[in-house]
């Protein structure tokens, strides 16, 4: 089936099998490999992207469901000149990653979290990231980074 998806501001058109998962489309057809596949069962959040600005798990969507929609992946967050998104900057400054595998999904989920709740409490950040697992268990600094990006004093 022919689909057209705007990925990180660039119009993409491809013929895909209906059963193609969105994450596989993004990685293997569009070539944006920043989005990771973790558990492949909509539990871990490593595949989190934005669909029309909202965080969703791209392993639990078909590419055909994204036809005509706007997708943002981790590659689309920074400015064209390389200036990082404030959330990426906060993750770097707070050392909010260890192995880095969960990081693209964590950052995308965190940006969506602050879009919906710009001034969360620590508890709200932890609750809001319940769909993202860090196997290094580095949650402490991830929560610090999100609070830092929200402007909360540490």
């Amino acid at each position, binding site marked *: *089936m022919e689909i057209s998806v705007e990925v990180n501001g660039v119009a993409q058109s491809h013929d895909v*099998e*209906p*059963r193609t*998962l969105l994450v596989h489309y993004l990685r293997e057809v569009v070539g944006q490999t920043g989005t990771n596949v973790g558990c*492949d*069962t*909509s*539990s871990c*959040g490593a595949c*989190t992207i934005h*669909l029309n600005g*909202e*965080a*969703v*798990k791209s392993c*639990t*969507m*078909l590419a*055909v*469901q994204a*036809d005509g929609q706007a997708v943002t992946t981790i590659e689309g967050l920074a400015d064209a000149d390389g200036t990082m998104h404030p959330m990426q900057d906060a993750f770097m400054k707070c050392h909010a990653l260890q192995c880095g595998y969960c990081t693209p999904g964590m950052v995308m*989920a965190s940006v*969506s*979290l602050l879009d*919906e709740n710009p001034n969360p409490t620590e508890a709200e950040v932890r*609750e*809001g990231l*319940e*769909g*993202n697992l860090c196997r290094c268990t580095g949650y402490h600094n991830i929560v610090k980074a999100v609070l830092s990006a929200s402007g909360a004093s540490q």
Partner: protein
Amino acid sequence: MIPVAFDYVRAESADAALAALAEHGDEAKLMAGGHSLLPMMKLRLAYPSVVVDIGRLDDLSYVNDGGDHIAIGALTKHRAIETSDMVKEHAPLLAHATSQVGDPQVRHRGTIGGSLAHADAAADHPAALLAVGGSVVVNGPNGERVIAAGDLFAGFLESSLDPTEMITEVRIPKHSGAGWSFQKFNRRAQDWAIVGASVQQVNGAAQVSLVNMHPTPVRATAVEEALAGGASAADAAEQAHVGMEPSSDLNASVEFRQHLARVLVGRGLAEAGIA
């Protein structure tokens, strides 16, 4: 994990979706948000030959005041329900239960109609619908009918919908200001309930339902009857496992689930203000 190949039909209207179901019968499955169906297709536990995508039927995404009830379009996403002031005011149990579904990403995609049609005893919405005494409006080749929550769940992952029917609306009676509770026991934040209990106070009586205690979403009738017969909440809660046939799995034995049901119903009755 990749689903078995299927033909994809995007329905542009409810009528088009019904026409596709009429054409393909039980070879076809409706896909709303896809957060129940797609995981099962990836595991190849479900392999419909036709997927009818109804995810874009925006005219079936709404929260309206229906007078004595709230009318929620079947395609309304969990996120819209948990943040709806109307739902929070008149159906706080449903608002809270919705906020406990999966995680934020899941709630951005999953729909109330999809969750109810999936009829999973381990899911939050079916039990909430039973406790609040809600119903669903169903459309099919023979027109519209209303199915009460108590008649909606026919078996394991099986609703009483005909393969050619679809849920179009969910109706939740207003229980503004009445006591309620939604108890969900799990070990990890985003998991399904190992056991859950819903309690809604209605005119001083209690409507109680259980999550993951039976092959179907289920009312705890033994608890309700004990309360109606004058038993204390504590004594009634001891009946929570009666008549239930819970499964045993990696998370819990049958005995532990029975124990959890009694404890969670006890907590739920207390929180809902049932003495």
